[in-house]
């Protein structure tokens, strides 16, 4: 059972990356365009209420891809809107956080202090 659990994480996570690869190769999008598209897709899925079931199903297979960032923000905003109505849509923006972003900022800053860019090819 635990094996199937991991397999689902692998397959769902892999498939989300495949969508990204197709956007890059077939859609000729730059990485920045691709990631932005996926984040917006995550938001929309969250709005439809479909992303949480995906997380329940695939675990990290759905939380690790960048789509979950759109989901986290939207879920937070919707929860606030549910509680406080129209004001909530606005205040929801300040309530929601994503650990991925804060972690990336902190670690990025630390990395800048200790590493030097490498221009080596192999």
């Amino acid at each position, binding site marked *: 059972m635990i094996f199937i659990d991991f397999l689902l994480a692998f397959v769902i996570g892999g498939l989300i990356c495949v969508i990204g690869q197709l956007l890059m190769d077939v859609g000729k999008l730059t*990485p920045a365009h691709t990631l932005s598209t996926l984040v917006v897709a995550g938001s929309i899925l969250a709005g439809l209420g479909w992303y949480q079931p995906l997380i329940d199903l695939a675990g990290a297979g759905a939380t690790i891809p960048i789509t979950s960032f759109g989901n986290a923000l939207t879920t937070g905003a919707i929860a606030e809107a549910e509680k406080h109505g129209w004001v909530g849509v606005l205040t929801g923006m300040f309530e929601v956080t994503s650990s991925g972003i804060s972690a990336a900022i902190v670690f990025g800053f630390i990395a800048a202090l200790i590493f030097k860019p490498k221009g080596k090819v192999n």
Partner: protein
Amino acid sequence: MVIIFKTKPSIIACGAVAGPLEKKSVFYSYFDSVVEDERWNQKTNEQGHAMMIQEACNIIMKKANITNNLDIDFFLSGDLVNQMTPTNFAARELAVSFIGMFSACATSVSSAIVASLLTELGASKYAIAGSSSQHNSIERQFRYPVDYGGQKPETAQWTVTAAGYALIGKHDPKLPSIVAGTIGKVVDYGEVNPFHMGGAMAPAAFDTISSHLKKRNQKITDYDLIMTGDLGKIGLKILKAMFAQTGAKQEELDIFRDAGAEFYGEDKSFQSGASGAGCSASVYYSYIEQQLKTGRYKRVLLCATGALLSPLSFQQGQSIPCTAHAIEITME
């Protein structure tokens, strides 16, 4: 537009230096010096870039027995960094009359054409011409930070860390001489992919080479070698296909070579090959000059190509305008 140099200015001495990765280059043994540190022991990439240019100039002066900077009349050079600060800073140290030249990766040849003109005019006894590029400082400006994990397609090219400079002076029958040059026009066949420079630049090379041959009333076979700058493996194939379509035979196509395509040999991790203003310059002003001197080649056409894009023009959805300049060098 073809210019014929009646006084046949000569290439008196050359200096080519390269970065640590360029040890992998097939032209490595022809370079004058290779530095272990990508930043030339400076604090920033751009300072290292400037240091590399200075070193190439120092090598030339040593080779030509010039002890005083002031004996050099002109310094004509360019690079790819915004406002060409590395070249400007190197020129500050050199302290001679200087004009920054920009034709992107074709600067190696365009600067040599201007230096030859000044020599022909009698205004210059010694003029240093050439160009350079440093991988890290170019990549971060045109593409992504060097440690960013973006996937490059097979058509992508690797910006070299190298500088190539030539000292151009009065005609000397024992030295390679520049007999003609063609200043190319800007050609744009609508390529928009910044990872396919070879495809963007090939039409410019085709245009410049064919008009040079036409105006000079020459055939491809009049040359021992026609070498383009940094079309890369795929760009060179496209150029050959263009000439094949206009009726060139296989033995004529074999005369064509490309510095960028050969620079890193068959190493697949560099995709289509090398690029950058330092690519053509470091190969022309080391390997080619030495081959001419040894007499292996008697007449060569060097056609450096340049893609005149900026990160802004690409983001604004503009196609990539390209240019190519050519010089014809002979050895008596």
